[in-house]
């Protein structure tokens, strides 16, 4: 009898402890039926947003609210789904946190915003727009759409993003592009470093600009590029022996160069005001 009593007491204590720990968090699961190529928007001031490819014709949103100081506002009409973390009076960057995991049809167009939470988008084929202040932004294994990134100081990482129109604006966040190609790839950074590792695809235009941030592009020897680089107050160098080409501006040694490699099917422009620019040869 005593043993049973102790067991039940222990069970009660464990149950109450569990309740106490879980009391602040609220889980919500939302399901939306959608048509072909839906538009999904998630606006979450505080907390991470992870978006992955799910099944066709369905959007599944799993959200963990960290307190009752925040609630979910949702709306859907035809092919559009909007979910907003609505901060209530008294909410701050701790109590206002919502963690999202979202599954969307692979061809969905997605717009996500978070002030400081991680933004992760994976395996999608539609248009992707992400915005963040300090959020780290990752876009992996996506293809065939547009990728727009706006960030103030969060790092940006695009990896294995193919045949995509890329447009990134960053103030202080470093931008890393690995295995990224498409008809137009643009990075506009202030002080953040821009790093590109890839072969620049075929017949694409790659424009990387910074104010003070360094620009580093690593390409294989077989890359087919027409590359123009200039840093007004920084240093410029290339590991490649480029075939010289006429430039519309005065070429200063160590400050700018313009040349081609192989058939020069892609255009690469690397411009900085005072950042260092380095076109590196990939060591295989």
């Amino acid at each position, binding site marked *: 009898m005593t043993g049973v009593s102790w067991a039940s007491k222990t069970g009660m204590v464990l149950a109450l402890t569990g309740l106490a720990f879980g009391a602040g968090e609220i889980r919500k699961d939302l399901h939306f039926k959608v048509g072909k190529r839906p538009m999904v928007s998630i*606006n979450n*001031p*505080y907390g991470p947003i992870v978006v992955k490819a799910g099944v066709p014709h369905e959007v599944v949103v799993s959200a963990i609210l960290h307190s009752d100081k925040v609630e979910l506002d949702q709306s859907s009409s035809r092919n559009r789904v909007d979910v907003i973390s*609505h*901060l209530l009076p008294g*909410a*701050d*960057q701790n109590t206002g946190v919502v963690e999202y995991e979202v599954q969307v049809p692979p061809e969905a167009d997605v717009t996500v*915003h978070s*002030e400081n939470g991680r933004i992760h988008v994976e395996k999608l084929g539609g248009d992707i727009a992400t*915005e963040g*202040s*300090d959020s780290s932004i990752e876009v992996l294994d996506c293809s065939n759409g547009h990728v727009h990134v*706006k960030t*103030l*100081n969060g790092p940006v990482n695009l990896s294995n993003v193919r045949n995509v129109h890329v447009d990134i*604006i960053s*103030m*202080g966040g470093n931008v890393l592009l690995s295995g990224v190609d498409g008809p137009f790839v643009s990075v*506009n950074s*202030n*002080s953040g470093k821009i790093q590109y590792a890839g072969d620049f695809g075929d017949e694409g235009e790659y424009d990387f*600009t910074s*104010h*003070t*941030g*360094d620009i580093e592009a690593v390409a294989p020897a077989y890359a087919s590029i027409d590359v*123009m680089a*200039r840093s*007004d*107050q*920084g240093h410029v160098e290339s590991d490649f022996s480029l075939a010289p080409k006429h430039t*519309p*501006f005065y070429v200063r040694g160590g400050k700018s160069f313009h040349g081609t490699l192989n058939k020069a099917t892609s255009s690469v*422009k690397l*411009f900085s*005001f*005072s*950042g260092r620019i380095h076109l590196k040869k990939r060591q295989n």
Partner: protein
Amino acid sequence: MNCPEFERILPEVLEGGHTAERQAHLNSCSTCSNLLADLSDISVQAKTLADSAEPSPIVWNAIEAQLRSEGLIRRSAPAPATPPWFRRWQNLWFVPVAAALAIVVGIKFYHPAGAGENIQTARHIVVTPGATVRPVSSEDQQFLDAVATRHPARQARYLADKHNADAFIDDAKEVVKDNPGDVYAQQMLINAYEQKQMLYDLAVDRSSGQ
């Protein structure tokens, strides 16, 4: 924690966000501890002006003296006791802007080279009283109003970003001025303005994220 990492979280530390790790770095690094002390002084003095219609010359002089002592500014010409530009700026917003500007300049340029950071700024910075105060457009004012409602640490970051965006615009303008027919210089100027536009969009349009 190293010096660049400490600088990144400096706005939080200024708001009292101390942790054991941060304190350990402060204890071991006189450069960062001095920087924090100086910026705290500036911040405290700026707050004392919140209720006045015009900042005290004492505060401006203290900021100026601090920047001059660090070799960050130099006087281009003897300044009058009450310079003309000073009288134009009698609105309250001048106080946080001037203080934030001083903090931004302090954060960006105080740290000496060779302390483990890859210093990006190669330009010779000349800051003279009045020269750093640019005209405020309606968009600027809207931005400042929106930022003023944010958490102080967030405010500091927004103002630092604005400073960097403005610096990019100024530098790009100079390049265009020197090379009027250079389409790439013009594109760089457009990019600089795009950065500022993005900053304003994120600060003003996303006011829900306090």
